């Protein structure tokens, strides 16, 4: 199944899914204040957030006035275009000119960082790249074991230290190893941490500093992994992680449930961080490039 199919099948599983709701709201209705309010509720129900919803809807209202729109169904197209505008252009992961390509993976607890790394590694090895994984989560019980199993599945190499050791030291060793072994990609896992814990955010900065000291243009990508069920707190997460590690993109996981992941729209709008990848299942192949056209289309088709 392609990304689009998976998204669509994920969405159709939903009992009260966004698409149906919007369809039923829009079908055969004339434009009215009530209609706009219903649309607003649907956007809020998708975790897009009050502020972003209000702004998007304000633009929709404005355009409806200017373009003298009468039919409810025409509003759909306008709403779709407005959301599409916020999401912006498609941005995929792009390898740098030199190897190894160093990718650091960060996020709060339980969003699926390790699984994401496993899938990413599998994708790169399938492309014929040599991949090294660094077990930088030295805190959570058995985190390194979990990554080791993914390394085996994806045929990647693994650099790990003992539980409780300094994650920056793991990153240091991993950069050396990736160079010496002429790896194409190095993916560094980090422990899940709440963005409100300043000491843990400092630790993250230190890991990044150590990487940059060894390889001045690295890490080339810092991916923030975010769970699609996340509510408005996602904005605060993105803000703090961005300040600490210059996040280059978001991986939106668990999109195969009923959650819409709308918070990424608010994040893009307020912080400019694009979504690069989406996770749509627990299987090794269940990761896809984020395609904004498909994303919006899947919401409205």
């Amino acid at each position: 199944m392609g990304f689009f199919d998976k998204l669509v099948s994920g969405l159709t599983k939903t009992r009260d899914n966004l698409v149906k709701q919007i369809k039923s709201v829009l079908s055969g209705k004339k434009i009215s204040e009530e209609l706009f309010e219903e649309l607003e509720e649907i956007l809020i129900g998708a975790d897009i957030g009050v502020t972003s919803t209000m702004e998007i809807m304000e633009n929709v209202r404005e355009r409806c006035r200017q373009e003298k729109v009468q039919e409810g169904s025409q509003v759909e197209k306008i709403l779709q275009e407005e959301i599409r505008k916020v999401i912006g252009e498609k941005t995929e992961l792009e390898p740098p000119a030199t190897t190894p390509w160093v990718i650091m993976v960060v996020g709060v607890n339980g969003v699926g960082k390790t699984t994401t790394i496993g899938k990413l590694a599998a994708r790169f090895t399938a492309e014929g790249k040599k991949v090294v994984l660094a077990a930088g989560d030295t805190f959570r019980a058995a985190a390194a074991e979990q990554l080791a199993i993914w390394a085996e599945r994806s045929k990647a190499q693994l650099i790990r230290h003992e539980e409780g050791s300094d994650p920056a030291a793991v990153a240091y060793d991993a950069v050396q190893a990736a160079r010496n072994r002429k790896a194409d990609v190095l993916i560094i896992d980090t422990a899940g941490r709440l963005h409100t814990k300043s000491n843990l955010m400092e630790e993250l900065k230190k890991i990044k500093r150590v990487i940059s000291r060894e390889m001045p243009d690295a890490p080339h990508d810092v991916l923030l992994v975010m769970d699609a069920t996340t509510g408005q707190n996602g904005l605060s997460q993105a803000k703090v992680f961005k300040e600490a590690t210059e996040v280059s993109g978001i991986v939106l996981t668990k999109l195969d449930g009923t959650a819409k992941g709308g918070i990424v729209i608010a994040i893009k709008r307020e912080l400019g961080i694009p979504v690069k990848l989406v996770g749509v299942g627990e299987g090794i192949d269940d990761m896809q490039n984020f395609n904004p056209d498909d994303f919006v289309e899947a919401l409205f088709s």
Partner: protein
Amino acid sequence: MIFENLADKLQNTFNNLKRRGKLTEKEVELALKEVRLALLEADVNHKVVKSFTERVKNRAIGEEVLKSLTPAQQVVKIVYDELTSLMGGSAAQLNLSYSPSIIMMVGLQGAGKTTTAGKLARTIKEKGRRPLLVACDVYRPAAVKQLQVVGNQIGVNVFSQEGQKPVSIAQAGIKYANQNGFDVIIIDTAGRLHVDEELMQELVDLKTSFKPQEILFVADAMTGQDAVNVAASFNERLDISGIILTKMDGDARGGAALSIREVVGKPIKFAAFGEKLDALEIFHPDRMASRILGMGDLGTILEKAQQAIDEKEAAQLVQKLTTDDFNLEDFYEQMQQMKKMGPLNQLMDMVPGMNKMKGQADFSAAEKEMKQLEAIINSMTPKERRQPDLIDASRKKRIANGSGARVQDVNRLLKQFGETKKVMKQFGGLSQKGKKKFKMPFFN
């Protein structure tokens, strides 16, 4: 996006309305508009927001405005009371009356089931029972190993079997518990999506086979609008007995608590505040209500202060304040008590209006400064601490050298101390009049 304190916002809405009498529909509507936004920003599901504010509206219209409150405050009070009673209700105790009692942990991936199972086992062990953890997450790589490490850390046995299905592992685990005198069995299950029919059926099978007294749904406090779908599905299939909210140590306002409570009508039994294995706490509906409304978590901060400050010491301190012999030793003592309350930024999270400052104020710098103050005081002689006036230029130089600080730093400390003393004298006078138990003047 920083959310203003709801109370402040409402105050602005009503700034000119200082009146007594009954709440009018217009006033209630105006106030509820802000309440609605606050709840949505806090991730309360929009349908729940609707039904909830409707109820509040009906209750509030015509209600007498208390003498001490403005209409806005009166509405907030009604909202707060309603939230508290909605999330509270019947006593949320664990049912451990059977021997063995069986507890099953369920929830989405990444909610924190395994860590919470460990915390729960520890809590139960401290009550004098003999818990056994049974590892039934056979899907996630290294999940069993994680539970084993957790069990090891808290001194609780973990039962696991290679290559078996969850139902047979649980069966063998219960047999093992009976043979070895364990009287509470905690079954850790794999995280799963509520729309995954096959895996949901597996939970139903576990339930039918072993009839657990407790099925605890573990939910992440950061969950957004989808919380209602997930909780309702799990409850429909399993008729859960209670909820545990995790990751409460973050800054999410936790509206999911209200959504879940409203949709499944089951009690929230515990709240988890951290990754360390001792941090499972009883859920406090009143604190959650003020947190959801963005009014800070005053209850927790007061409790922390109470825990940290020895009452006798506090009484002595108050005594000193009024008699003017507050010295650097007491100042030092106060700093130690503050440290006991936890990291500054965590405390600030709980103070109403203070979470606004986060990001602006650098608390780690403040903590560094506190460390330096400590070092400086440590470099003084006991006599100097008791009589700071003694400290002249040459003593200052010695103290600076001894603490690795500069003379300016010593000066600054003495100046700060002088100011604190002044403030404390004022507070001391107040607290005597008002008969308050203690004051935290350093909080200024």
